[in-house]
């Protein structure tokens, strides 16, 4: 029962930094990266490039950026929550924005958590480490549909 991480991030620099931070935090769980909203949904629903994937194998946590091409973060979140199977999927919004409307909308649409990406890397790494520690170790994931 390997806990997986789904990282939905379009910015390659940010992707690299998240991976680096996870490594620094000794989080060696498998990370799948979706580079836009459509790809994220393909992964979760087992469509497109991910057709045939066992979708009951849900990620222990999804790190979701808000600004994404094709379908943006909130759109992905809405689609995830609309589906019975993914109603309880832990989703952490990890984003640059601190705009009130984003935070409010995210929680309204059912995000579990909202974390801001700081500019300074060590702070960023710290945030990632805490996230990893919490969602992968401490938090009880919802019983999967297996």
């Amino acid at each position, binding site marked *: 029962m390997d806990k997986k991480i789904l990282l939905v991030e379009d910015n390659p*620099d*940010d992707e690299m*930094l998240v991976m680096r931070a996870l490594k620094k935090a000794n989080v060696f769980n498998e990370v799948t990266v979706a580079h836009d909203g459509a790809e994220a949904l393909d992964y979760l629903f087992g469509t497109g490039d991910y057709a045939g994937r066992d979708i009951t194998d849900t990620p222990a946590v999804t790190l979701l950026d808000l600004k994404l091409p094709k379908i943006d973060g909130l759109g992905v979140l809405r689609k995830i929550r609309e589906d019975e199977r993914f109603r309880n999927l832990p989703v952490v919004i990890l*984003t640059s*924005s601190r*705009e009130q409307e984003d935070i409010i909308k995210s929680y309204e649409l059912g995000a579990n958590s909202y974390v801001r990406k700081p500019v*300074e*890397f060590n702070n*960023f790494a710290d945030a990632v480490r805490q996230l990893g520690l919490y969602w992968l170790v401490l938090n009880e994931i919802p019983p999967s549909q297996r």
Partner: protein
Amino acid sequence: MADKKNRDQKNNLETENSVTLLSVNDWFHLLVQNINSYAVFLHDPDGRINYWNPGAEQIFGYRSEETVGQNISMLYPKEEAGAGIPQREMKLALTPGRAEVEGWRLRKDGSRFWAEVSIIALHDQEHHLLGFGKIIRDATERRNADNSLKKSRTMFERLFENAPDAIIVVDSRGVIRKVNQQVEPFFGYLREELLGQRIEVLIPKRYHQIHRQHRKNYFADPRTRKMGAGLELYGRTRDNREVPVDIMLSPIETDEGTWAFAVIRDVTQRKQDEQAITELNDLLKRQVHQLAATNRELEAFSYSVSHDLRAPLRALDGMSLALLEDYSDKIDTTGQNYLNRIRTAAQTMGELIDHLLTLSRLTRTEMHLEEVDVSGMGRQVAEEIRQQNPDRIVDFVINDEMMEMADPKLLRIAITNLLSNAWKFTSKKDNARIEFNVEESPDGERIYYIRDNGAGFNEEYIDNLFKPFQRLHAVGEFPGTGIGLATVHRVISRHGGRIWAEGGIDTGATFYFTLAPS
């Protein structure tokens, strides 16, 4: 026996005659004695009074003992007696036998009254002048009434003539009977050209029929009212120009029946003004919409900025650190220094972006005013600062009773900035003291102030204090982007208040502010 009877009869006859004669005299005497509202008296041709009735006593105030035997000149005001008025009046009545005059008379108490006098020349059977009889009525009241009426009429005529509006009087058939001065320049006709004309001559042709009907209706129930309520009325001038007008109608009773007064005002200007106001309002509405649109654009812009500008900064910082960590053996001290500077620069820019966003949001946010416990807010902020910097001990002195109408969110930002600044600039002092208090000015204004005993600032540069990004200290001395005070200034401005500062080098700084327009 017959003689006695005759004598008796004769006596009786005489008695009867004398009784009859006496009766007639007595009757007249009785009559005149009982006339109270008229003064009736007799005097000889020289003016000596020989009879004075009770009416005369009442009207003049003299008893007959005081007047009989005296001259009538005592009954006139001194200057008239002196001017020979009494004699002139007698002369006036002599030839025709009687005269009616009016004039002033003098009462016993010295007061005057206006007299209506009938003078009758009395002659005996041989046409010798016996004297004059005078019947006098106190006509003061009537004269006053006449004068008032005259004054009234004059005043009315003047008002009518000189009124700033055109006034036209029409009879029940719509014929113009009277016009005032203003009518001439207003309509371009001479008075004479209009008198006797139908009022329709001053109305555009297309309204004639309906106006005739309105006229009939008006005279059926004439009341003071505005004509054509809700309608656009027009007058027509001699040169066929149409003038927009307001008309007030009033009925007036005359000997020839009910007429109507029309007061006519040119409302061209007012209509133009109304048009201008409508246009201005439309312009205002458009501008308000544009403003709202601009605000929304700004909103969207800020949003983009907050996302898109931060990402590359993260990369700058993160990659530089990655280099430092992974290639430390391949990069010398100088190189590492450069990388550190890159990191600092990126982080500073991040802060700047945050501050700019806050500043811009401050202007656009709606203000919600409520009673705010300023003291409580101050204590909370002080506590937050303390917790973020547990290694320092600073003495906070905060007044307990500060309350003010303000926007709590915005005020918190301002207070946080000011107290953080005070905290920052006292970092090199051992016994740092920060005071947050309020004082009342002579004209009842509440002036808040935050005072510290820290590094202060050079008052020479005070003009730049509140400008965004302007700093009065080097970054090495005290960190910061220089946007804090600009933010505070924005908050205070939005409350309608003022902010100013005093300081000295190393003698601390005091920031004063008000939260309401003075």
